[in-house]
């Protein structure tokens, strides 16, 4: 009986996830038929003309996530080195708990703070570059950086702590300073775990919705001349998630191509976050575990 129930409920879970993936593929079929591969490469999204190209949203999603990583990863690694290598165990737990509280703060509250504080700060600070408004990819990226920081800290701290204390003692015994121990003994061994923290944080950043929606500006078709232009970070943009919670989701339902294009965005997001998460999870696995 217990075994049967276990199987039953587990299969229910597997079936639901299978259904989810199936629905996102199946419901996006109309747009693939309508646009073909240009759905992925086309730069223009004009739903009234039934022109659907996701490039500018993929760009937006990648740029805000990269900004978030550039800001959050160094700070997160630094904080993790501090908690794992410098703090006594009990204090370390306390600090970790506080940082994990930060992870629990809802996106909508970050969004509210973004509207109130961050938007004006970005607008004024970067005035020299003449941003058109305070709603920029950079604003969204900074907000995301704060949101993913706890993920980076916690996972990196776990990775660093997984290195046995004996190695620290041995290295110190050889006359290495604490910093030298960290850089030449601990970090090289924890590299996989530290890398995993980046990928899992990337997955989280790409999927975050509410906060980004409120500060990114929601401007369609805003691709820069060069993918590597930093000035373009001070433009408004659109991410996959900000599109998916916008009013277009309500409008699209009932028009199979437009709806397919929206669901297709969800599918692309699923592939992007899924890849980051799975590779990240693969990284965390110790070779002999």
């Amino acid at each position: 009986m217990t075994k049967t129930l276990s199987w039953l409920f587990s299969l229910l879970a597997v079936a639901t996830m299978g259904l989810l993936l199936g629905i996102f593929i199946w419901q996006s079929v109309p747009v693939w038929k309508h646009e073909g591969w240009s759905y992925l490469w086309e730069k223009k999204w004009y739903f009234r003309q039934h022109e659907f190209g996701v490039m500018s949203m993929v760009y937006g999603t990648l740029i805000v996530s990269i900004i978030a990583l550039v800001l959050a990863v160094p700070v997160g690694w630094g904080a993790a080195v501090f908690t794992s290598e410098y703090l006594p165990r009990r204090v370390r737990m306390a600090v970790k708990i506080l940082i994990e509280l930060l992870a629990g703060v809802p996106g909508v509250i970050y969004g509210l703070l973004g509207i109130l504080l961050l938007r004006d700060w970005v607008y004024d600070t970067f005035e020299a570059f003449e941003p058109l408004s305070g709603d920029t990819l950079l604003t969204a990226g900074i907000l995301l950086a704060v949101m993913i920081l706890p993920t980076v800290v916690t996972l990196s701290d776990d990775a660093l702590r997984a290195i046995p204390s004996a190695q620290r003692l041995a290295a110190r015994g050889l006359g290495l300073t604490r910093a030298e121990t960290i850089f030449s003994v601990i970090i090289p061994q924890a590299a996989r775990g530290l890398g995993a923290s980046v990928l899992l944080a990337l997955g989280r950043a790409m999927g975050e919705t509410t906060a980004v929606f409120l500060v990114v500006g929601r401007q369609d078709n805003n691709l820069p001349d060069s993918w590597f232009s930093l000035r373009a970070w001070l433009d408004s943009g659109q991410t996959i998630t900000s599109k998916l919670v916008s009013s277009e989701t309500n409008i699209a339902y009932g028009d199979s191509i437009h709806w397919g294009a929206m669901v297709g965005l969800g599918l692309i997001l699923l592939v992007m976050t899924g890849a980051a998460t799975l590779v990240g999870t693969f990284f965390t696995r110790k070779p002999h575990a």
Partner: protein
Amino acid sequence: MRKFLDAVTALIAFACALLALALLGGLVYVIVQKGGPAISWGFFTEQIRLVGAAGGIFWNLIGTLILLLTAFLASAPIAIALALMERVWLKSETSRSILRTGLYAINGVPSIVFGIFGFIVLVQWCGWGKSWLAGGLILAMVILPTVTVALMERLKAIPAKYVEAAAGLGLSRSQIIWAVLLRQSWGGLITGSLLGLARAAGEVAPIMFTATIFAGAAMPHAIKESPVLSLPYHIFILAQDSFDPGVGSKLWGSALVLLGLVFSLSLAALPTRLRIHEEAHHG
């Protein structure tokens, strides 16, 4: 020189940790300072009036609690089943590892994807319209990996001698599961659920198309067409559409209450987590 680099490293690491903590402190300070004045007894017991400019958030709070409770009840049996699969029923390490990887993959699915899935399947195909149950089930999907992994870890920590002793008493495998494994690990279920719910409580994306509306919903009487109000959606709407200056303080008050709820859920999970942590170090 080496001493100097050593000190610089320590200083930089310290500054990073301090920055992370300062962000938390600053965030809490701003929310408390702006939301504090709105908090009163009536804020919790009255319903919204004047499109959010007056009254309180009673039904928003109740709605959020209904969603969370539903998510907990719906995810618990699935999480138990999956955890038992991994610890007891699956024999090969490969299939266990696939199961674990699958859970991490689910954990990585953006919540808006779950929201749209719920909109297609529950709201449209099942014809439920916006419903508390649709929202609860979708949030259950959001928290499922967290709950399951916490439970697995707890199951793993049960000393083998307990199981051996139970087997020695002639208990069947089913009996061992109920009397030993699940009895010893329910703390993991609760901890995982609290952590998961702390995340779910503030989510807008999974419930905005499936479960929640701005005004007028109270206690749901049915499933179909029975939406609830909720705290995060309330904040999301007011942030874009507050007319009256009076809305401002109510908006921040709602944010403060939501933050309080989320922190309470995280902190409630703490004692069990600390105990597990202690056992891991001394046991």
